[in-house]
């Protein structure tokens, strides 16, 4: 099993082709020793009697036909123990913080098997992030995967950090951990994340995987798999609630394309491989809750949309897998609004199971829908106002236009450290809606209007006092 071979026939990009050997298993872990004695690791992509194709994670630089190849007879595994919390590892799972290697209590295959859909518990625990555009209109629940679609130069990292800092399930104090996977981000961005983790003490309950911009690109294909294997261990073995943040998925997909090109595969849209959907799914689908287990995995993948184009294959395929998306808008950012989350194209698919009576408040859905409807209409009217001038609009339209402006300033806009409770968020929503006549609140049941509309709410309070 541990025979070493010196039969590398061809090296092409990140791939090596090895000849004449004992049968080798598909997906096996491969160790390649260079003439300097340095070791690299790889994985079998295609195996047959004649030739074996190996993808080398740490790059093929320095390899030659004289390098030796050893097939380990085993697939890639991640060493895991409770001591992993607080560690900083490389994109391929080696210590990067100067600490000792992880002494494994258990080793897990990094290509995780799929969670049996019948064993999944329905995610329904409301997570309060303290950000109105999320809590109020795109509510996050435990076990969800909600990506942030952003563009270059936008403050998506700040939003992610604010979420990581403030996220909590109301009325619960449970073991909580963050797994952070960086793929191809710059050293500066990594520093930014690390500094914030350190400042808030999050580092002590985090596991960090860093593959920076100058690390090998192929290694990035490993990083989220290592991170998610760790997350599954923390969640389902150690009963922790795990928040996984990975950034930037765009870099991951670029590596995937690079591999596809090296293997001379038939390319799909824009050169990305046809199996990119399945590949992304094997990452994103590792979020959720399992029946009878205490822990959970909630994912926040961050990706920058090339050219702010949401139809680009990377955001497009991601959006088909994830349970919604938060869209960071350049337009709002330019207006100086933070967080610049455009609620119109944003969506949380699991919102309904986490809101309403017993979770947030009974009027939540109705208020959210009503805010959405008039904000969207207001945004449309801006285009009209730009052509015909505000004066030519009807009174109703002017009112809605004003509503949209106020909505951006009061509801969307908030401080980077501002942690709004869900009740505060809903109160702001009602305050905004109260500028419209009651007959315009067609999406809200009368019974909620009678209770929560500021007009009646203050009357009810006054009554209570007397």
């Amino acid at each position, binding site marked *: 099993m541990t025979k070493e071979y010196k039969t590398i026939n061809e090296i092409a990009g990140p791939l090596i082709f090895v000849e004449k050997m004992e049968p080798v298993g598909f997906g096996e872990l491969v160790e390649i020793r260079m003439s300097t004695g340095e070791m690299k690791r790889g994985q079998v992509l295609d195996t047959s009697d004649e030739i074996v194709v190996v993808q080398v994670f740490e790059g093929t630089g320095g390899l030659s036909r004289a390098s030796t190849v050893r097939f380990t007879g085993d697939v890639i595994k991640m060493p895991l123990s409770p001591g992993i919390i607080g560690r900083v590892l490389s994109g391929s799972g080696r210590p990067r913080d100067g600490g000792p290697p992880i002494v494994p209590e258990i080793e897990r295959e990094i290509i995780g098997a799929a969670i049996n859909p019948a064993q999944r518990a329905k995610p329904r625990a409301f997570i309060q992030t303290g950000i109105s555009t999320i809590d109020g209109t795109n509510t996050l629940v435990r076990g969800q995967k909600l990506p942030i679609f952003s563009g270059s130069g936008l403050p998506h990292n700040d939003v992610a950090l604010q979420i990581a800092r403030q996220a909590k399930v109301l009325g619960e104090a449970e073991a909580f951990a963050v797994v952070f996977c960086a793929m191809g981000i710059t050293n500066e961005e990594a520093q930014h994340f690390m500094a914030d983790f350190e400042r808030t003490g999050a580092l002590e309950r985090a596991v960090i995987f860093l593959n920076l911009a100058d690390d090998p690109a192929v290694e990035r294909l490993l990083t989220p798999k290592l991170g998610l294997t760790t997350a599954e261990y923390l969640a389902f073995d150690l009963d922790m609630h795990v928040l996984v943040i990975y950034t930037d998925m765009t870099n991951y997909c670029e590596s995937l394309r690079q591999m596809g090109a090296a293997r001379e595969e038939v390319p799909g849209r824009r050169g990305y491989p046809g199996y990119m959907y399945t590949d992304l799914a094997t990452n994103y689908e590792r979020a959720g809750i399992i029946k009878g287990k205490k822990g959970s995995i909630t994912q926040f993948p961050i990706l920058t949309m090339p050219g702010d184009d949401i139809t680009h*294959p990377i955001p497009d395929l991601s959006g088909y897998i994830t349970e919604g998306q938060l869209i960071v808008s350049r337009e709002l950012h330019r207006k100086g609004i933070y967080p610049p989350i455009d609620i119109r194209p944003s969506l949380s698919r699991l919102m309904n199971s986490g809101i309403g009576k017993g979770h947030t408040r009974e009027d939540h859905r109705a208020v959210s829908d009503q805010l959405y409807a008039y904000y969207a209409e207001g945004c449309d009217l801006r285009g009209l106002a730009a052509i015909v001038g505000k004066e030519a609009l009807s009174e109703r339209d002017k009112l809605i236009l004003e509503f949209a402006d106020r909505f951006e300033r009061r509801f969307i806009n908030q401080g980077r450290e501002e942690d709004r409770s869900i009740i505060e968020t809903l109160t702001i929503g009602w305050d905004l809606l109260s500028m419209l006549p009651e007959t315009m609140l067609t999406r809200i049941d009368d019974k909620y209007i009678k209770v929560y509309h500021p007009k009646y709410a203050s009357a009810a309070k006054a009554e209570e006092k007397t």
Partner: protein
Amino acid sequence: MEVVGSVKRVAGPVVHATGLKANMYDLVLVGKEGLMSEVIGIAGERHIIQVYEDTSGVKPGEPVKETGGPLVAQLGPGILTTIYDGIQRPLPLLAEKSGDFVSRGLFVDGIDHKKKWEFIPVVKKGDIVKPGQSLGLVQEQLLIKHKIMVPPRHKGGTVKEIYSGNFTVDETVCELEDGSKLTMLQKWPIRVPRPVNKKLPPSIPLRSGQRVIDGFFPLAKGGTAAIPGGFGTGKTVMQQTLSKFAEVDVVIFVGCGERGNEMADLLHEFPELIDPKTGRPLMERSIVYANTSNMPVAAREASVYTGITTAEYYRDMGYDTMLTADSTSRWAEAMRELASRLEEMPGEEGFPAYLSARLADFYERSGRVQTLGGEEGSVSIIGAVSPPGGDFTEPVTQNTLRITKVFWGLDTRLTQRRHFPSINWLESYSLYEQDLEPWFTENVDADWVKNKRRAMAILQENAELEEIVMLVGSDALPEEQQLTLEVARMIINYWLAQSAFHPVDSTATFKKQFDLLASLLKYRDYAFDALAKGVPIDTIKSTPSKDALAKIKLEEDYVPVLQNVLAQMDAEFKAMK
């Protein structure tokens, strides 16, 4: 004698093997673990095999065993309420065997072979039975009687012995003169359509309870519909709503490469949801095939066939069945992925050249039919399509639209305004409209067709006017047109918009749909009348009864409420001078 071949090459889900005699689409077992696989190509000495499970660790030289036949679905009592993976393995049983994660090489029967069912014969000794004919009944669920039929490929004959009592699906319940023994179990290859006597015309509507669908773009029993839409336009909610409220006997939900949490939601919700018609949990009439996006891609490819085979089986008993596939794009992508691993010459956008043929074969398995047993049953198919980037010109959407008769186009702009169902009323169509009009006229109201055309005309005009409004503002329009805009807004918000989550509004009877629309049109007539008499438009627009119309759809017992509002409207307009 068992033929054993040997693995030559492994590349992801595709394996090459030599030494086999298997036919195309035969089921084989690959490797030491015996992974379920299917022969999808034969090239000289080599069999090309797609594996339904993860192939990590499989080596050249490992054995490949033949099973002697194609992949079959097991059909018999006990299918209903079960949740399966794409190759009909019950997921709860997999969980018992392998825990919370799906591991490999597991064999589980599609239906329970140990459970005893009470079989009540409907034929007697000496009767001549034909293929497809019912031999007896099993009460599978409280409301569903499972008919045990002579299998379609059996030639039938004279009943020599028929038993009654409790049996497992493997025990003989009927013997024929020619010596053949019939059980309650049928096995049917999933890729072959089950035969019928004849197909019937699509002249009966399949009630969905959704006003925009039943009112404007109805589906016929046995029909096919496509729901294309970019992500986040409400495809999944739409499909789930239809599964919940459509007026059918059996619902088959194929989650094909979709989200695990969504399946969890469905599995959590269905047992709790009560069918408004029967008062029983919806799960009792449902079968779920869940092959999530991270489960093996080859099983995803098979899942739609397994699903449609089960639908046909219940149809053969004389039931109306509906299959919803979410999403057929993922199915097509599974085909593409496998084709590319086979290094086949790609067609458009990398999809295999046989994409359109496969889609057509699948949708052709729908239909309202007279079964072999002489009953009337139907299979309706609703396929969600997820076009990349929301671009409807891509091959899967285009090929699907060529085959399906109903197109419910979901619109991102409507979603962003939180208008649900986000079916675009200008772009969508139903080719069953003509076929179904006589039914609606006869069974709902003689004015059904007329009202529908009037409403559509108002919406068409509204779309044209909106373009003008975008340029000059609404105040610059003549008053009649301003009123049309107002009426259109009412039709859109009060009638077309329907909340899938509201306890009352989530479904509506044909009668309620009709009455609501008629009341809006009545308002329109009053309003135009008043305008012609010189009543100022602002007075017309601010009639209190108009706002009252908005909330009638939320009333369970809407008839008295509607009558009050109509009386109020009548009084208000009479008072206008």
